[in-house]
């Protein structure tokens, strides 16, 4: 029957897959090395000669890919390293004895360093653990003072010193970091006692059903997902349970009482079986649910790397993956399996041999109507296989099965084929990222592309993007951007060459942000290159922040204006305001009207005085005048108002705007006049317009004062007559009105007199003025007082056709019969003429 090919070894419910024969050449294997391997098939860091503490021989730090290809190597010159570890974004952390953490990229480039606090550096680091949580990569430290300090996210360091563990006299026998309830906690074993430390308290806990023989917990490990916990006691028992210590899953006796080198969970997500791997020198024991353990021998010093769905074992020569056999694979490859997938695989095999047995197998599956299940199983199993040949066999079988199904959704099959192609490519020895399908799905394509980019495998990354049809914006363009960011840091090439290369490569890629690339160039000290690159940025708005950073403020300002985004202009203006001295700032604004008007807007609301200064600087006397006028009517006090108006007058004269100056002077006079009168006569006047003032005066009978204003302010006759007419009529002072009408010839004629009387229903008075009206308005006047005869008379006299018609239209046929005849006759002659 079918069995696993060469490099896969079955160990009961587990399988061990050989990933790589390591490409490195280590003389002493991993002995005496400090080793750290990143999860998800990440890089491996070795600090060689770390345990030899002679001042002459410096330890060597080496970084390799998972397949053992060298990425970096350099002598370690800093302090004593306690622990190595990788961050979620493939950066190397080196925790030193004094609590300083140095961060390197995967090419060995130093990035930055940070300290874990004074307390740590004083009492020195005893032990360190680097852990990953949804909040990033964290560092936990046990100090010489037997206190824990931890930081949950090294990109946003907030140091937390955990409470003291009661009764702790010497280093705890073992400890681990847990992430529970959105908090990182430390689980500490002191002999047989177990404590959970969180921010505020130290709580003693007891694992349920821990065998009583144990007097001390010597080792512990938490699963990849932080859900499960395994404890190893000095009696050799492994207790497995949930990490909240509420439930026990199993307990197994390893029968070995020496402390192990390492322990790790080996469990795939959703699996029902707990299993942990314990490693001693040369020996590996897998413990699970049953009492039996699986043991096997290790030739070499090895390191366990826990993964989401298994454990990787790295030795001086080999790199293997130990994992529970995936369900689908087990179903298919189990000896004498009758699972639909297994039958389909067999059917396909027979079909290739052109044997009719194929049909028998197929029929058997179809009879149970399990064909679609069979196809699914084969596809899924293919995903879990590392050998391309096995993958192909399974996928072919699936494809074969699919032929006999209608309406089977093709997506799963298609995407699996794609995924596998990508996985096989990155698992390649030269790339060395041994991801399983489960891990790949968990980490997502985006992250995988990031990792490839980080390894400078740009062509492969682009190919993956294109192959998986990742939207250009997130895929190819992103890779190209990273490539360009890397490119601009190559110091040996000239600005021109790089700028050209970048623009050629990125030309037709959508959504490229040149400003980001330019920022990189600027950060690596190449301002000129950055400016060149910014020129390629089509959105001028994007150029602005960097230009500001590079202190190219005039350019930034004009780019912001070019972008048409006022908000951006505003940002620059505000930046400049704080950056430059006032004089320079104003000068710069002067050349940019858009920015200037924007700033004026702001000043209008926020800084009135600045506004004045701005006008002053520009010698804009006109605007200054307006400014003072505006200020004047905001002020309630008369003296202040007059003073402000005086300033306005001065400015208007400077602006050669005599008109405004004069008007403003008049206003000052008017204000004074109003004030005086207010005091004398107790009438509310201040702030009224000239007209309103006169109206008020006339209405209260202060004719003399009104006359005075009329003369002083050279009010046009017409206006005054209108005013007085209206005021007198309103008071129905007909006598005065008549007198007024006779003072001199009315500049507005006498028709208004007639109309105003009619308006106040005084036909008698109205008639007095009809005779004075000019001939052109006679008809109207007669009509207004309702004198049809008079109107007709006037119209006929003037022989004006339209006037005659107007009168006609007002005549009523019953009463004015004769009149109408006359009018019609006159109209006829008028028309003839």
């Amino acid at each position, binding site marked *: 029957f079918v069995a696993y090919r060469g490099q896969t070894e079955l160990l009961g419910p587990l399988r061990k897959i050989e990933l790589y024969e390591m490409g490195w050449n280590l003389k002493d294997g991993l002995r005496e090395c400090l080793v750290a391997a990143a999860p998800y098939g990440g890089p491996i860091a070795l600090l060689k000669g770390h345990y030899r503490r002679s001042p002459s021989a410096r330890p060597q730090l080496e970084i390799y890919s998972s397949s053992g290809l060298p990425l970096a190597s350099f002598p370690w010159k800093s302090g004593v390293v306690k622990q190595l570890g990788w961050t979620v974004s493939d950066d190397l952390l080196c925790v030193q004895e004094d609590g300083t953490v140095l961060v390197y990229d995967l090419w060995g480039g130093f990035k930055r360093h940070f300290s874990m606090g004074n307390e740590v550096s004083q009492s020195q680091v005893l032990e360190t653990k680097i852990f990953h949580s949804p909040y990033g990569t964290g560092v936990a430290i046990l100090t010489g003072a037997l206190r824990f300090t931890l930081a949950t996210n090294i990109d946003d360091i907030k140091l937390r010193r955990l409470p003291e563990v009661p009764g702790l006299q010497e280093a705890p026998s073992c400890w681990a970091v847990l992430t529970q309830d959105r908090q990182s906690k430390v689980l500490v074993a002191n002999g047989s006692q177990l404590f959970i430390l969180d921010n505020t308290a130290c709580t003693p806990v007891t694992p349920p059903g821990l065998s009583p023989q144990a007097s001390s917990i010597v080792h512990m490990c938490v699963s990849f997902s932080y859900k499960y916990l395994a404890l190893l006691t000095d009696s050799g028992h492994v207790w497995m349970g949930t990490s909240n210590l509420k439930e026990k899953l199993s307990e197994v006796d390893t029968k070995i009482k020496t402390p192990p080198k390492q322990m790790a969970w080996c469990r795939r997500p959703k699996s029902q079986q707990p299993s942990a791997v314990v490693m001693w020198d040369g020996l590996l024991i897998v413990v699970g649910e049953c009492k039996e353990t699986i043991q096997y021998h290790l030739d070499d010093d090895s390191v366990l790397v826990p993964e989401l769905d298994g454990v990787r074992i790295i030795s001086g020569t080999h790199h293997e993956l130990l994992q529970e056999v995936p369900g689908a694979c087990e179903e298919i490859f189990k000896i004498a399996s009758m699972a639909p997938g297994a039958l389909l695989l067999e059917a396909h095999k027979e079909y290739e041999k052109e044997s009719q047995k194929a049909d028998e197998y197929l029929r058997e599956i179809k009879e149970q109507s399990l064909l679609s299940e069979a196809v699914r199983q084969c596809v899924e199993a293919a995903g879990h296989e590392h050998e391309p040949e096995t993958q192909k066999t399974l996928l072919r079988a699936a494809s074969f099965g699919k032929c006999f199904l209608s309406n089977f959704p093709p997506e799963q099959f298609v995407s699996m084929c794609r995924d596998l192609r990508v996985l096989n490519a990155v698992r390649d020895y030269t790339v060395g990222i041994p991801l399983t399908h489960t891990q790949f799905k968990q980490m997502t394509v985006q992250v995988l592309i990031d990792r490839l980019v980080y390894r400078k495998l740009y062509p492969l990354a682009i190919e993956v993007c294109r192959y998986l049809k990742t*939207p250009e*914006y997130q895929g190819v363009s992103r890779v190209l951007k990273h490539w360009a960011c890397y490119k601009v840091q190559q110091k040996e090439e000239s600005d021109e060459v790089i700028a050209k290369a970048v623009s050629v490569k990125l030309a037709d890629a959508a959504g490229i942000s040149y400003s980001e690339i330019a920022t990189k160039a600027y950060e690596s000290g190449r301002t000129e290159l950055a400016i060149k690159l910014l020129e390629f940025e*089509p*959105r001028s*708005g994007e150029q602005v922040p960097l230009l500001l950073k590079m202190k190219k403020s005039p350019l930034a300002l004009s780019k912001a204006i070019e*972008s*048409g*985004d*006022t*908000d*951006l202009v*505003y*940002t620059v203006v*505000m930046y400049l305001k704080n950056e430059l001295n006032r004089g320079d700032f104003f000068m710069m604004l002067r050349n940019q*009207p*858009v920015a200037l*008007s*924007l700033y*004026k*807007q*702001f000043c209008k*609301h*926020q800084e009135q005085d600045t506004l004045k200064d701005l006008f002053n600087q520009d010698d804009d006397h*006109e605007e200054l005048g*307006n400014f003072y*006028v*505006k200020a004047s*009517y*905001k002020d309630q006090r008369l003296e202040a108002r007059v003073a402000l108006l005086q300033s306005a007058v001065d400015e208007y004269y400077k602006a050669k705007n005599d*008109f*405004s100056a004069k*008007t*403003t002077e*008049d*206003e000052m006079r008017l204000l004074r006049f109003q004030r005086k009168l207010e005091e004398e006569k107790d009438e509310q006047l201040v*702030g*009224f*317009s*000239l*007209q*309103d003032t006169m109206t008020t005066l006339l209405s209260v009978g202060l004719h003399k004062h009104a006359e005075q204003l009329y003369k002083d*302010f050279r*009010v*046009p006759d*017409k*206006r005054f007559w*209108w*005013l007085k007419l*209206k005021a007198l009529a309103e008071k129905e002072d007909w006598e005065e009105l008549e007198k007024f009408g006779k003072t001199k010839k009315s500049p*507005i004629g006498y028709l208004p007199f007639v109309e105003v009387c009619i308006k106040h229903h005084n036909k008698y008075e109205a008639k007095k003025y009809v005779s004075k009206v000019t001939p052109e308005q006679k008809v109207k006047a007669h009509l207004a007082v309702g004198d049809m005869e008079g109107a007709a008379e006037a119209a006929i006299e003037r022989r004006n056709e339209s006037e005659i018609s107007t009168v006609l239209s007002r005549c009523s046929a019953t009463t004015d019969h004769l009149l109408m005849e006359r009018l019609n006759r006159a109209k006829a002659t008028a028309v003839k003429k």
Partner: protein
Amino acid sequence: MAHTEWKDAPGLPDFSLLKRLARDQLIFLLEQLPGKKDLFIDADLMSPLDRIANVTILKQHEVDKLYKVELKPIVSSSDQLCFLIRPRIQTVKWISDLVNADKVAGRFRRYKIIFTPQKFYACETVLEEQGVYGDVTTDEWNFYILPLDDDILSLELPEFFRDNFLEGDQRWVTTAGSALRLLQSVYGSFSKVYGIGRCAKMVYESWRELMEDGEQRTRQPEFAKVFLVDRDVDFVTPLCSQVVYEGLVDDLFRIKCGSVEFGPDVTSSDKSIKVMLNSQDKVFSEIRNEHFSNVFGFLSQKAKNLQTAYDKRRGMDIQQMKAFVADELKGLKQEHRLLSLHIGASESMMKKKTKQDFQELLKTEHSLLEGFEIRECITYIEEHINRQVSMIDSLRLLCLLSITENGLLSKDYRSLKAQYLQSYGIEHLLTFANLRQLGLLEEQQAGETLTVMESKVGKLVNDKTVGKLTDAFSSLAKKSNFRALSKRLALVPKSGEEYDLRVPRDMAYVFSGAYIPLSCKLIEQVLERDGWTGMEEVTRMLNGQEFAVTGGSSSSEARSKTDAQRIVLVMFLGGCTFSEISALRFLGKERGCRFIVVTTAITNSSRLLEALLDNSA
């Protein structure tokens, strides 16, 4: 001649979707501040908000009490305050003061500012300067467009006009761009974009950039063409008295956010009634585009019809009566109610508008448009000012005079200005400064000298450069060139001919046959020519800045005959009047296409000029 349905006219897209989008986002934002909260709303956002989410919806999302922003100290006992405001410095300052006052009083509250339609950096600067940046959370409610009617979309940003054209503050440009982008993402892309004006150009640019940034979705477009026009391209139209029913209602009663409040003189009761004015109102939709002289006749006909419909009851048997009550009566009642309102309104209108003064006012306007008897007009305006008839109307006539005459003679300018100031106070010096800046009211001399210089220079160099020089000069002088434009585009029909307002023959009917709105004429011409070719001289007189761009969807040729191709989106930057909308509806009917008007706000002469007053303390 009521035209209820345009024959052969394409259907319009469903704009209620925009309301739903806005509502959903608002609810999402309100839920970001869980628990009971008091909501403070900018006064001018109240009506638009009401159209999107009424009080019931707000209460459902734990809004406890609603307040209007009044820039005064508040009385609220809530621990959570939410502010829904336009991004104005003043309002933000007020909020900062509030927060600081609470701090002094040792009161702890949570504050959230929701800016709509967008946040401005200036506002955040204020928060920062006032030291409350950390105490307040801010958000954006991207409520760009309020559909006022089937074919009117408004940005409800009246300040756009002043900010952009007077203050030179272009912050709203991106807002307008975003609004277009929103329309595009919901209703599909456009095949062609035309525009005229500086702001129009900037809006287009901003829109184009937004399009490039985002993902492209190609789908069947629901509009064919877009026309962007700046308000300052045509100031004459909004300055004229409106005589089409809807415009007249706006002039007299002020339509606010698609609804109007009819006072007691209209309702003939002691109550005011608020009425929504849109195509849902069957009576209104038939008279909105009519010249007001026709409206009364139409309404009385309608009343008769209604009576006939009621009269049907007589002689019905029980069964028929039952059907009548069930099916028709409610509709009739509704129609009855609306009819009596509109009759009331037009009565009140007639009372005001058939009076002598209004006729004379119209006559003066028409003379100005025709350039006829200018002296008499000036005398009329003088009298108007002297008698303090109306502050805004006087100003309006002055502006019309200045624009149509390319500025006032120095003597007239000074005397009219002096008289105006005497009538209405010296603070109008600033108003005049504003009007001059916008080119609405100018002294002639500068323009004159330029013309002289121009012609002198013109003789020295060849024709081609003359154009350029004139460009330069005219942009300096900002001349209106109205007279020349009017001649070239035949905006003013020949006088003397009778114009039957019952059967309009062109868009001039919206101004009693005296004038075709320049803005609408431009749109008509450009659509007819499919671009600006042949209109070089016109655009030169309008200070250029015209453009025509073919849109992204190259396959537009293939479906050039679909309905969508006959829908034209016109965006007015700085506001548009109901008269213009009526004129465009008429044009659409003539050409078998439909216009959708997008505007920064509905405007009219009063709103336009009030925005330029500077007498507010």
